[in-house]
């Protein structure tokens, strides 16, 4: 479904991704690991074409989206649902308005129907009590769960993208988020989770990519990951 073909990406003068290639199926559970600033989030943003690669091609479902105009990207983006680090909720809107945002913008649902749908989604992620709160009043874990509810309201994606879903969370909240991510997988929809938390990666993924200095140094399954002899990955695992 997702194909990166010799992708190169620069930020200012710094090369973030250096000629990387990989393919990911929509049913796979992929964990992308790497240190801070190694380009993990950049990969998610490239998949959604929120960034344009400096070289190479990005192919989604056989369609080259590398130079597609912005107006035509909505169809591609609807195939994914992304939860950004810290949730990226609209901070001038309440939790309800955040979750209802897409429904109000694109559907002809009545306010009663929207309210019902929003409550249903918030109940699914276990934050129904926060419906009238502002994002600033939520804890880190609640923010991510609301963001997941909002992404579910927005579209019926083929695949989920998670950017550091448990960073800065207490162990209990992190466990809740991990379970939620796994629950969403029950319809055989895959996901890509970008993280530097080994625990997250091992619990969630069945395929692992490790990035360092703009290159993919490791791409394999859990067993290969645990038994790796790649020095850079070993160092990363030892220091995590």
């Amino acid at each position, binding site marked *: 479904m997702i194909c990166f073909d010799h992708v190169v990406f620069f930020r200012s003068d710094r090369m973030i991704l250096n000629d990387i290639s990989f393919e990911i199926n929509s049913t796979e559970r992929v964990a992308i690991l790497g240190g801070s600033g190694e380009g993990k989030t950049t990969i998610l943003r490239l998949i959604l074409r929120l960034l344009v690669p400096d070289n190479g091609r990005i192919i989604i479902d056989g369609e080259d989206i590398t130079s597609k105009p912005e107006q035509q990207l909505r169809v591609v983006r609807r195939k994914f649902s992304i939860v950004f680090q810290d949730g*990226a*909720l609209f*901070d001038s809107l309440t939790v309800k308005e955040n979750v209802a945002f897409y429904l109000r913008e694109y559907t002809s649902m009545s306010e009663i129907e929207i309210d019902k749908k929003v409550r249903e989604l918030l109940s699914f992620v276990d934050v129904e009590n926060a419906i009238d709160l502002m994002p600033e009043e939520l804890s880190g874990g609640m923010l991510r769960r609301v963001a997941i509810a909002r992404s579910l309201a927005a579209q019926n994606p083929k695949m989920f993208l998670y950017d550091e879903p448990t960073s800065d969370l207490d162990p209990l909240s992190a466990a809740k988020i991990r379970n939620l991510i796994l629950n969403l997988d029950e319809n055989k929809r895959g996901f890509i989770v970008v993280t530097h938390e080994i625990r997250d990666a091992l619990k969630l993924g069945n395929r692992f990519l490790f990035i360092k200095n703009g290159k993919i140094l490791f791409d394999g399954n859990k067993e290969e990951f645990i038994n790796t002899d790649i020095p850079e990955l070993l160092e990363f695992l030892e220091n995590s």
Partner: protein
Amino acid sequence: MKNGLLKRKLLNLFFEVDSYYKMSTKGITAIFRPPIYFKDLIEQMDYIGSGTLFIVLLVALFIGMALSLQISAEFAILGLRMYTGRVVGISIISEIGPVASALVFAGRAGSGMASELGTMILGHQVDTLRVFGIDPYRKLIFPRIIGSVIMLPALTIIADMTSLLGGYYITSIVNNQSSTVYWDSIRIAMQSQYVAAGSIKPFVFGFIISSLSCYTGFTTHGGAAGLKTSTTRAFVLSTILIIISDFVVTKVVLFLFGYSV
């Protein structure tokens, strides 16, 4: 080495101007491409207008009083106190009113726009809009630019009136000059070129402040330090361009009215 650096700086400047132009164009032309976010426009007008009104009133009142005080003192020596209203009127309507309102507006509304949009960029809220298929230029830039172009002229009219009242207080109530003389000298002085200059400037300033602030906000990067830079940059660039465009508009208006200055 120096040539290389200069070339790179010029190229960067060119790219910045190009991006600024493209962003402003997309923001303004959104009015011709539905959906138009009227609710956001009204919200922005409310935020910009009501948020800036009190500061504009306060600044305008004291500028009017200070100007009148200064001019009255000088004109008293020359025996020209009856012309105080005339000079205060021309200065306020064509020059000080629009510029002072614009500077307050840049400090209050412009910096607010830059920091709000910068926070949205850093917090991936703009990315979220794009993922949802919503054009951020229509949703975020259009209401801010159009809102500013509507509200700054309105604020300037209120500021002008307040300054003139401040001048009236000093001239007529404190210095005991006839109020009829004060208001009549303003009325007589109000020739087309002064009114035209004073009317055109707020529209130009409104566009400059909002588009620059949106641009600096939208190009924020580098966390809290980047946000600080964007907000400062929005105000500094707006201030410089307000002063330069003030001169240009004045020159053009005077030229159009046949003045060879």
